[in-house]
């Protein structure tokens, strides 16, 4: 008998939550016990999730660690499994959770017990989303995640927390209602809710755009993509630090993951049809997010808008349908989870000390908080995409992929994809501009802070940040191993979306290096293939 590792990883946090719920004693003892129980639960979950990496066979393109049990009747089953695409997200979640818990050790002092329970429940739902192989089960986890986050923002958030939490909930749910409709329609058409079955079902071409738009409504809001991004800055600003970390680090990835795992491969025809629009929206998000980040005076908002910009790259990579672009997108997602998560943490640390997020109130922190500033600078550079950091790997691969895909089309006379890809480069210029300008005003210049004297980072904070920085460099310096793990899944995604299954005419023939037998990919021209149906 094999251990149901995925189920253990999913439900262990819930067990921890139940444990915390049962805690009794005086207030102080409950508070401490809740903190430590939550930390140990998340750490244990993380260690168990390591078994997923070590046990993952990168030579098998199929889903691994599969569990399949009776659940809702009919074809709707409790079906779990991970492939090379979902594995990084599971690990990202389990790795960020201890960080988030540790970050709220002192920042949260009221209702600690309930706070920790909310986070642990959230972890269960997030991991479940990434591991679900049944579309209804996916929906249950995906939607369920809204509730703890709604409470985290609404109870432990800032001044306008109620407004922000309602906006967050109502915005994301509207899209999801439409997705539920699409799921129902798919269920009745395909007679199954199993994602592995649906992927090979091939929905009629006149259905696909509608189904796709319904999924788009849900995932684009979650992502968030311009123009449905407006909930994000509010939610980030009002959320407690750990909430922002998880929001940026994991919850936003549910949107990109949804596109990658469901929307694009399920409806390849619609994807190719809408690819030019999609590429445009991605680039608008990149540039728009960057421009807005440039003019913010609230330090948390700067990071929030930079998230919109960074996730634009992910979409660009996914829609390019180039292997490097796809893998770059996955890398960019993980990297953004680490970097934005880390930056939100650092903003939270300075907020705990000074109780304001107004950029104008700060200056020259390098003199006041030297250790803090070093870490901040490292993460800033990673956000910009400096070589040797994970940000570089992701961004560079995405752009490379986008150009590799666009060039052959340009040669054939379709200039639009190339224009889109070229515009994305503007983000590479704007990124350093807003981040470095921010760092300059924040860290350098005449020293000032609203609350002097400041105490530099303590051991707890240093440990958290060191762990993140190590991961950022590890992915920047040694990207091969993770890239290999994702390669087969990325190829499969490429095959599914590029339309080989439906046998559409393929405009270009490109031999991919070292493609394994059986997946001799002949990717169709992305972005503009709609013009050559």
């Amino acid at each position, binding site marked *: 008998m094999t251990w149901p590792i995925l189920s253990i990883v999913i439900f262990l946090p819930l067990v921890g939550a139940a444990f915390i719920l049962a805690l009794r004693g005086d207030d102080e003892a409950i508070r401490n016990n809740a903190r430590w129980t939550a930390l140990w639960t998340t750490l244990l979950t993380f260690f168990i999730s390591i078994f997923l990496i070590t046990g993952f066979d990168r030579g098998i393109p199929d889903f691994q660690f599969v569990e399949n049990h*009776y659940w*809702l009747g009919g074809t*709707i089953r409790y079906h779990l499994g991970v492939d090379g695409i979902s594995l990084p997200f599971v690990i990202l979640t389990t790795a960020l959770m201890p960080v988030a818990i540790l970050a709220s050790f002192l920042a949260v002092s009221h209702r600690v017990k309930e706070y920790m329970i909310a986070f642990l429940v959230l972890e269960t739902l997030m991991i479940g989303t990434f591991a679900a192989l049944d579309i209804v089960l996916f929906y249950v986890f995906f939607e*369920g995640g809204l*509730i703890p986050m709604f409470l985290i923002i609404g109870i432990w958030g800032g001044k306008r927390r109620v407004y922000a939490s309602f906006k967050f909930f*109502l915005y994301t*749910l509207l899209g999801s209602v439409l997705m539920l*409709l699409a799921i129902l329609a798919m269920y*009745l058409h395909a007679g199954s809710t199993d994602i592995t079955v649906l992927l090979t079902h091939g929905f009629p071409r006149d259905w696909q755009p509608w189904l796709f738009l319904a999924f788009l409504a849900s995932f684009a809001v979650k992502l968030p993509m311009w123009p449905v991004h407006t909930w994000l800055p509010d939610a980030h600003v009002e959320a407690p630090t750990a909430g922002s970390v998880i929001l940026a680090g994991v919850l936003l990835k549910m949107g990109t993951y949804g596109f990658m795992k469901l929307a694009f491969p399920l409806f390849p025809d619609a994807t190719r049809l809408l690819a030019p629009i999609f590429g445009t929206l991605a680039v608008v998000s990149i540039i728009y997010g960057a421009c807005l980040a440039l003019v913010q005076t609230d330090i948390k908002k700067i990071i929030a808008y930079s998230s919109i910009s960074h996730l634009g790259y992910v979409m660009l990579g996914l829609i390019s349908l180039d292997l490097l672009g796809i893998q770059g997108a996955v890398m960019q997602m993980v990297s953004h989870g680490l970097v934005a998560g880390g930056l939100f943490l650092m903003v939270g640390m300075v907020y705990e000390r000074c109780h304001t997020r107004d950029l104008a109130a700060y200056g020259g922190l390098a003199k006041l908080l030297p250790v803090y500033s070093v870490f901040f600078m490292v993460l800033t550079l990673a956000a910009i995409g400096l070589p040797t950091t994970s940000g570089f790997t992701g961004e560079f691969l995405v752009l490379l992929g986008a150009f590799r895909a666009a060039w052959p089309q340009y040669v054939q006379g379709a200039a639009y994809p190339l224009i889109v890809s070229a515009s994305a480069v503007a983000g590479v210029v704007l990124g350093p501009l807003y981040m470095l300008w921010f760092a300059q005003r924040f860290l350098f210049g005449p020293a000032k802070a609203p609350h002097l004297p400041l105490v530099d980072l303590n051991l707890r904070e240093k440990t958290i940040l060191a762990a993140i920085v190590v991961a950022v460099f590890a992915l920047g310096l040694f990207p091969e191993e993770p890239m290999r793990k994702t390669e087969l899944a990325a190829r499969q995604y490429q095959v599914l979306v590029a339309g080989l299954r439906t046998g559409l005419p393929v405009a270009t023939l490109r031999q991919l290096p070292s493609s394994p037998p059986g997946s001799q990919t002949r990717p169709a021209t992305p972005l503009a293939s709609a013009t050559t149906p």
Partner: protein
Amino acid sequence: MSWIDSAIAMLPEHLLLAGIVILIAVDIAAPLRKQVSLLVSLLAVGFAAAAAVWLSSNGFAFAAFAGHYSVDPATLLAKAIVLALAVPVLLISRDDVGQGAFPVLLLSSLYGVCLLLSADSFLTLFLGLELMSLPVYALVLLAFRRPQSAEAALKYLVLGGTATATLLMGVSLLYGSSGSLALSTFASALGSPDTMANVAVVLVLVGFFLKAAIVPFHAWAPDAYEVAAVPVTAYMATIIKAGVLLAAVRLFGTAPVTRPMADLLAILPLVSIVWGNLAAMRQQSFRRMIAYSSIAHAGYLFYALLGEGPGRFQAVAFYVLVYGLMNLLAFAALPQNPDDTARDRMDNLKGLFHRDPFAALMIGIAMLSLAGIPPFPGFVAKFLIFKNVIAAGFTLYAVLGLVGSYLGIYFYLRVIQYLFMSAEEPTAIQGSPGRLALGASLICLLAAILLAVFPGWVIDLL
């Protein structure tokens, strides 16, 4: 031995009747203490529910009065659901309803529901429907706590009477066109081109709409729900609604619903969903809000009749079970107070999380489940209904219904906001639910968890 079979077939009803007789007889002999009468009624309802489950699991089917009354496993299961939902209602009634008449009236009404669910002819249907409704008119008045009680009860009585009259008119037309009082005449009249049959169908439907509070026949519900005592409101919101809807499923059978009747069956419930959800947003009284929410839920339930025949019973039974449990959970967790008007104010819920985290959590779970948000069982219930509606080809109505359900999210979230995110209200009352009410909420919670984790097993039973 057919008389034994008849007796067994009506075992749940007999047990209820025994409870009623004991309660009345003993009450005449010596006025009963509250606890004892509660215990007797709990036993009667509990045994009746157990009997229904036992008969159903043995696959018992028998026509006790051929053409008028019959049971089969599905019917018995429906009775079991309704009777089981009555247990928490009785448990929360201890603190609110003192008079000895309450359990008798409640049991009589339950007897009516059971009769209604076994009806094979319109005669039995009418009997059941009236026996179900008449005690409730009295129940609304029983805990006379506000001056408006009389007005609301009268409103309910008049509109309930109108419903009965409309239904009877429809039945007489059906009898006129088919010469039979069998329930199946309705199903065959559904697809009939005959105008008289169509008018009859519409009239019968309107009668059911009135009983279930579908817009525009909903006006009685908010008033009656608001002024009745909490257990009576809970009873009306859960069991009466469940009885009416399960009877409607029996009425429709597995007959396909076609246009233009389908449009009538879809549009009014759709309006109910939208209007119920919109009006609920503005309410300052908790029970009024639940009333509007129940108007919206009646809309979803009638939607289920649009779906394909075989799936209807399953969808409705699962839905009323979940919906009933969640309403009862919320009512059971409401803080206690002798001042009924004060207790009912939404402001009372503000900051409940800080005063009584358990109660806040229970009400929160109930609200999210009623809103249909996964992973709570309300989601699975809605999922089943909308799946059937789409499978039957009414995609547009499904889309509109789901969008309408989205409108409802806001006011459920507002309750959550009051519970968890608001500062404590200084004028809020400080009572906490009694022990029996706590037991009721635990029962509902456990059932809800079971339904959320193992929905498949429950659905297969239905």
